[in-house]
């Protein structure tokens, strides 16, 4: 049974390339366009890892992480922030919210796969 990864990003091309990279390594990938959409998609299915952008419309990535950590079923689900954001204070906010890793775009697929594999086995 492949592990499920939820990719949350308002950029369709980023969602696509993350999906290509992870599916090739045997992960099942589900995509959401922002934090609100992602919270809806968390209900009713088992997600083993979340990859989220930081700057998104409707609900930003930091708030999304805070909301995920309030859900009992996803309290310990690892979250990777995937972002163009380079400011250290945003990185600290993500860490404080409960994210496990911070990856800057453009990501290299092998690096992303290594980060994902470190947090959840395929």
């Amino acid at each position, binding site marked *: 049974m492949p592990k499920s990864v939820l990719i949350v990003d308002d950029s*369709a091309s980023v969602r696509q390339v993350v999906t290509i990279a992870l599916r090739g390594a045997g992960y099942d990938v589900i995509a959401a366009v922002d934090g609100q959409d992602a919270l809806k998609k968390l209900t009713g299915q088992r997600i083993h890892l979340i990859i989220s952008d930081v700057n998104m419309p409707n609900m930003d990535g930091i708030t999304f992480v805070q909301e995920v950590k309030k859900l009992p079923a996803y309290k310990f689900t690892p979250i990777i922030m995937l972002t*163009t954001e380079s400011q250290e204070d945003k990185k600290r906010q993500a860490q404080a919210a409960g994210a496990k890793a911070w990856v800057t775009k453009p990501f290299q697929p092998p690096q992303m796969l290594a980060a994902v594999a470190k947090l959840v086995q395929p």
Partner: protein
Amino acid sequence: MAEPIQLLLVLVLGGVLGYGFASARARRAVRARQVSAAAPAPDTPAHLHLITDLATKVAPVWSAQIDSSRAQMETAVSGLAEQFGGIVSNLDEVLASSAVVLDDGDGGAFERSRKRLGDVVGTLDDTLAVKRRASQELHTLLGLNEELKRMAAEVTGIAGQTHLLALNASIEAARVGAAGAAFGVVASEVRQLADRSLGISERMETKVTGIAEAIESVLTAAQESAEREDHAVAQANDEVQGVLEDLLSVVSTVRDSSAQLENAAVGIRAEINEAIVNLQFQDRVGQVLQHLRDNIDRLPELIARTREAEPGGASLDAEALLKALAEDYTMHEERQAHHSGAVARVRESEITFF
């Protein structure tokens, strides 16, 4: 493969941006913004009047074109990425099928075929071995038959001697006269028994001879059959070896092709990874354009605030616009380009684990 992909990306981006400036949607957005833009007040200084005109007429066009370009670029690049994902998926399926055909976890088709054909030849060999043992048994039987023949001959000899002995006894009994009459009867009975024994032993000899001939006939037929079957099995073995060599040649060719495919796949995967990095340009470019659009949208507001704050004022606060733009930045490259005015190189990805 990377070069065609990059060329395709450039063409798509070029087409998108080129088409963006002629977009009907952009023109509708511009008209809407122009209609809503406020005309400069009569007491506005001439230069501010000109700038107001510029801001209310040109800035919306810039914003609309940027929005249009962003939207089209997003659509085109995500479509491109989706098609690219389909190609990658097909490639993975082809490689997986190729690997399954060559090595299905049980030594592959060639090893299975060799084992099965080897079993067939082995079964034929076993059958021949059973026949050889049967021939040996027939030889043994023939030997026993010869022994039986000799025994029958001995019985014949004994019967002949007994007959002769009984005849002599009859003669002696006759010579004795009445006193030997009873003995003569016994001698006669013994002679009859000897005659019957002789007849039986002669028939036995005939039968044994017949059996020996039958066994020899069967043995000869079995030997001829064994020779033919030996030849057939040897021929079958040669044919099987020939088929296996042909099969091995085919499998080796397929394996070589598969190995070349695997090597090509390694190269393709590296290029796919590179393409995945390059496809992310849309996200970065989109964000830069969004920040510029937001900043352009602030220009008419800045002019309006300036006019309200100092109706006869002579200057606009460009620094405020630049500051707002800088605050929107998320990427190093944006900040670097902002301060240096030069094209900034995209940084390598960094990973931090918390």
